[in-house]
């Protein structure tokens, strides 16, 4: 897993405490709104996202930048790929 700590996101989505698989549904919904090259930050407490989000990125042609850990939740960073 790639860990990062200073990524600047264009859009943030807070889904802390929302149940699985909201992390994938929100991810898909938010990415549709972004322009290629823009970065999405997803805040979640769901550890299954460590597996699911990078997998979703490789399947859909988006770039998984990494995750930032904090005591309560995680911040995942995803860069929108070219159309």
């Amino acid at each position, binding site marked *: 897993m790639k860990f990062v700590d200073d990524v600047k996101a264009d859009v943030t989505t*807070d*889904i*802390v*405490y*929302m*149940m*699985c*698989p*909201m992390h994938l*549904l929100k991810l898909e919904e938010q990415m549709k709104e972004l322009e290629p090259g823009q970065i999405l930050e997803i805040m979640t407490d769901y550890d299954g996202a460590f597996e699911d989000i990078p997998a979703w990125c490789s399947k859909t042609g988006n770039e998984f930048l990494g995750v930032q850990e904090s*005591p*309560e939740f995680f911040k995942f960073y995803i860069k929108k790929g070219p159309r």
Partner: protein
Amino acid sequence: MKKYYFDHVATNPLHPDVLESMMPYFREEFGNPLSVYEYGMTAKNAIEAAREQVATLVRAKPAEIIFTSTGAEANNFALRGIALARQNEGKHVLVSRMEHHSVLNAARFLEKSGFTVTYLPVDKSGFVDPDTVKKMITKETTLISVIHASSEVGTIEPIKEIVKVAKEHNILVHTDAVATAGNIPVDVLDLGVDLLSMAAHQFYGPKGAAALYVKQGTRIVPLIYGGIQESGRRAGTENVPAIVGMGKAADIAAAELQMRMEYLRPLRDKVIDTMANVERVYLTGDKSNRLPAHASFCVEYIEGEAMLLLLAAKGIFSASGSACSSKALKASPVLLSMGIPSGLAQGSIVFSLGMGNTPEDVGYLTAEFPAVIKRLREISPYSQGWGDKEEGGSCTVKK
């Protein structure tokens, strides 16, 4: 015998238009809202339309409405969900002594789970004093829950002022608006609350549908885990017909709110004014700042249950305290918290009016009730005074 229903805080009859709006979802539109084909989409669209109607009733955004099954669930969800979500910031919760059991017992659960709960005292009318709230806030406080209006005594609490105090300390405020939403204007932006509970059957909607307003951006730990219904915050296949009915009831309530209040207030006042002339009958709650259809009293030297039985024999249906307290034959903690002596609190009676009550119905009530009191006092062992019973019970507040 004609029936006179004066217990609308227990529940309301269904509005005929509400029932009609629900029927297709019992019959042909039976789909699961999560299904991706037509049946599912129809059900999903119906729920989203209802969400918009309920949001409009309290001036919220549709995404801020989470449907639950009952008001009790909404209250449990608010207390446990926020206390848990914010436990790293603090583990102290404030709740008032006017709360419904679904808030009080959720607070007790939090106490058993390592949280500290402070119970806010109230004055003789049942008001929570915002200055008292201020004094009881600690650095650990994350949530304050104060009922919007008590269904037992009708007093409407100063929620806006309590929110003002809370916001100075970054504390979230929940209000149980089950007795008010759909009955008096409830505006989440004006009140400033972060969470608000409401239930459909309190405004001529069906049982089995309720909602919790959660202000956008507020994190809340789910009460029920499972699928991604309600944006992953409340799992379980939705009660589609009931939710549709709640939406319709909210729509009608929003349109008829002023008319309903103007119709009910004079009827309520007639009950209150008549009873003011009966000896040793005391109005409970505040006289002016109270629910428009709510008249509650404590009748000295008589038990509430005895009054209910004799009234029921005359076709009049009412309540003694909360539905829960009535069943348990227990003096209401709400009345005791207002300083009403336990003996007198046993003589509690609540008449809550609704749109099905006519002025003639109220005339029948105001003619029959004093006669019931007279008859019961004739046979009451305490008609000459409480004697040593006045001391009874650890909850007794001496006059």
